[in-house]
């Protein structure tokens, strides 16, 4: 006979504002098999948990239903409380009265009725629950960091410095990411390269870090503590063991007219190239799509000049497989570079630039050696216009969100411009100035007060070129929306931060969630910011949403701490919510007929065939068997099984039928 305890949480007023919690508890008390039912203001608080623990002990409960928030939030909390009171944690279920009821319905009788139904469903389910034991699995203590920007670098160094092994995979020929492209950084105006490059070198030299550049994740199988990653090492066409990085090949390469990715198309590079002088590793790769030899079959200049014979044209892509225990995603972001602003003429007018292009112009290592000059004619612009929110906060263009960093870098750009062009005039068109951060507001004020940057509150409607000038048509909303027209020499668009191309594909490879804008989704917006929905996979930096350097570094260290925490255990317990094949002994036998349809359905190859032998060693029958180490508990096999011989712990057929019937039977 079941003795179920029902505990209804008010969640402050989050539930009780629309649901009559006392009534739900009273009704639950009348349900068959319910021994005890009560309600409480904060069930997850210490007194709340104690309430549950005492009830388990005093009433000898055989099952617990907590009617509170989403089980995705607090199921572990309450299961732990039950375990502490001596009840098997898997005999505790949660009924979602907050996210699925009180927050989505109005206050009325139906809402309370629904809450009662939701509780009843779980009461019926929990009656059929069986005690389960957590599964223990070993952990491979090696982390995979995807992306070698500042986020990946920070995470890798933190993990490596804690004594754990790290594999870093970077898709470009060098690590460094967008931060290496920046000139100065806000709000201190210290040089980006000066603070970044030492860390890049540290990564390359760290004994615990294996660095794969020009490489991408191909496959990821397995689960927390036991992933198997297949990495594609794209053919560099250069043998790095022989290459000394002397750079002779790059100076002699005849294909010199390829727009440099590092310089955002404002400079040129050769076909065999290192992206920038401080690259790590400082060895070149051949860009096959632009190499004369690969395209036309002739050239081989680099091979001729290479003093060590390191050029190898026939090297194919290679694949390596690594066992790893945790993954850190740090793939970063991108800025919009397409024909996104027809009204601003980006792509049509040479001197209408993105913020990232302006960084290259302002950078001492950039194509103009740090002088602000127009790409079209090399002239120094005397009047420059910056347009904030170019694409951001623009639902009509598909980006309703704020890109967060643009207000700050626009202020920085205007400041840098004023520092470099003393007689220049700079204008910033903005909607709001979002400078929340330590010393950020002060920084923006400095741009306005000390450097005389003209801030105009309004959005620009259009830009057209006339006589080498760009006519910028805006409005000053603080002057009664009076139209403003500025004849500018250069326009810089603070283009929206967007997810990296390929982010969606990568997310699908790893089975982590992503949002509508293809940014990776954290497990909980507040309490699990560096976790993903998939255990053992963490994320940091701008791949989650646009963010600045301090925040990225903080998040990277957070993700690293999670990995280090995970690796501090030698074994890992896993939820026992997995499939099992009914193993009834002779003479009844399992109903499994050995058709092994389940085997074809299993995405994890967790099902194998097993021969059941008699005493004389002859095979009596063949049945399916689930490997508990591999099974992830999706349950696809259960729905596949024709003879109902396979079932899932925690979501068994019996439990699910009970739940559905409880809901519909009045």
């Amino acid at each position, binding site marked *: 006979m079941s003795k179920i305890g029902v505990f209804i949480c008010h969640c402050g007023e989050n539930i009780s504002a629309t649901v009559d919690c006392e009534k739900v508890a009273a009704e639950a008390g009348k349900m068959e098999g319910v021994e005890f039912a009560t309600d409480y203001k904060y069930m997850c608080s210490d007194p709340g948990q104690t309430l549950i623990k005492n009830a388990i002990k005093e009433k000898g409960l055989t099952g617990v239903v907590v009617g509170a928030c989403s089980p995705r939030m607090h199921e572990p909390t309450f299961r732990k409380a039950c375990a502490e009171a001596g009840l098997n944690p898997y005999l505790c279920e949660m009924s979602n009265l907050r996210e699925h009821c009180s927050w989505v319905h109005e206050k009325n009788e139906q809402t309370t009725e629904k809450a009662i139904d939701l509780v009843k469903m779980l009461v019926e389910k929990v009656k059929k629950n069986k005690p389960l034991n957590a599964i223990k699995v070993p952990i491979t203590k090696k982390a995979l960091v995807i992306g070698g920007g500042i986020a990946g670098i920070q995470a890798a160094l933190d993990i490596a410095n804690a004594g754990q092994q790290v594999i870093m995979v970077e898709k470009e020929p060098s690590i460094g990411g967008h931060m290496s492209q920046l000139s100065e950084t806000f709000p201190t105006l210290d040089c980006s390269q000066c603070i970044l490059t030492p860390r890049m070198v540290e990564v390359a030299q760290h004994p615990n870090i294996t660095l794969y550049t020009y490489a991408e994740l191909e496959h990821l199988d397995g689960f927390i503590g036991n992933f198997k990653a297949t990495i594609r090492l794209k053919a560099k066409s250069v043998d790095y063991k022989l290459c000394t990085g002397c750079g002779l090949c790059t100076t002699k390469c005849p294909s010199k007219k390829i727009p440099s990715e590092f310089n955002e198309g404002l400079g040129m590079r050769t076909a065999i190239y290192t992206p920038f002088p401080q690259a790590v590793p400082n060895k070149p790769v051949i860009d096959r799509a632009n190499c004369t030899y690969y395209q036309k079959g002739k050239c081989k200049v680099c091979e001729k000049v290479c003093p060590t014979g390191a050029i190898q044209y026939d090297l194919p892509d290679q694949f390596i497989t690594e066992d790893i225990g945790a993954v850190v995603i740090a793939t970063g972001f991108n800025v919009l570079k397409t024909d996104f602003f027809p009204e601003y003429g980006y792509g049509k007018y040479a001197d209408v630039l993105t913020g990232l292009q302006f960084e290259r112009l302002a950078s001492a290592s950039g194509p103009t050696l740090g002088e602000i000059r127009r790409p079209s004619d090399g002239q120094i612009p005397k009047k420059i216009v910056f347009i904030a929110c170019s694409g951001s906060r623009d639902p009509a263009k598909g980006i309703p969100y704020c890109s967060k960093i643009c207000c700050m870098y626009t202020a920085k750009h205007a400041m840098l411009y004023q520092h470099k062009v003393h007689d220049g005039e700079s204008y910033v068109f903005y909607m709001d100035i979002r400078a929340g951060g330590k010393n950020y507001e002060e920084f923006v004020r400095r741009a306005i007060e000390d450097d005389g940057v003209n801030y105009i509150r309004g959005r620009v409607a259009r830009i057209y070129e006339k006589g080498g000038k760009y006519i910028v048509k805006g409005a000053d909303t603080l002057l009664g929306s009076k139209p403003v027209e500025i004849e500018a020499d250069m326009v810089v668009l603070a283009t929206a931060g967007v997810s990296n191309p390929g982010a969606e594909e990568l997310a699908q490879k790893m089975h982590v969630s992503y949002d509508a804008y293809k940014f990776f989704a954290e497990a909980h917006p507040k309490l699990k910011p560096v976790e993903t929905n998939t255990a053992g996979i963490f994320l940091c930096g701008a791949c989650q949403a646009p963010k600045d350097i301090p925040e990225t570094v903080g998040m990277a260290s957070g993700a690293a701490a999670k990995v280090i925490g995970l690796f501090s255990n030698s074994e890992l317990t896993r939820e026992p919510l997995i499939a099992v094949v009914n193993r009834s002994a002779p003479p009844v036998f399992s109903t499994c007929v050995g058709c092994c349809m389940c085997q074809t359905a299993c995405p994890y190859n967790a099902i194998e065939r097993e021969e059941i032998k008699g005493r004389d060693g002859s095979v009596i029958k063949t049945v399916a068997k689930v490997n508990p180490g591999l099974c992830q508990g999706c349950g696809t096999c259960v*729905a596949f099984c024709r003879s109902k011989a396979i079932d899932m712990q925690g979501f068994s057929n019996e439990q699910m039928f009970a739940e559905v019937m409880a809901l519909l039977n009045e």
Partner: protein
Amino acid sequence: MSEFEPKIVAFVCNWCTYAGADLTGTSRIKYASNVKIVRFPCTGRIDFMLLLKAFAEGADGIIVSGCHPNDCHYTSGNFHARRRWVIFRGLLNFMGIDVNRIQFSWVSAAEGAKWADVVNSTVTAVRELGPYTKYQKAADYLAQQDQSIIDGQEAMIIK
């Protein structure tokens, strides 16, 4: 007589739609309270016998919802569910169950508003279709028949 309030069961996966419905809650988007969610690890887990059972027990409509194609937490469970649904539809039709009473959809963890839309549109559609008792009656009848057969057999054994 107030308007007919249909009873609708939603079978959803834990990773996408359940989380999406959580987001509906966190975003405080209101929707009809007729739908009750049953949580599964994956749409691949959903045994379609459960859908029949729900109709037999008096459900007026059903929602099955999981991750978008390619987004399945378990790689391919949603594809299995989709394939099963295609075949199952034919069976439902054959059995005389109105397939319009089942709504199959993809709702990701980021689509809180979409979940509310799915719920509301299903409630409206099912409300228009009216209460569903046909299958329930048939199931009751069959159960009676089964019972009489069992009774008969028992009687025979006793004899």
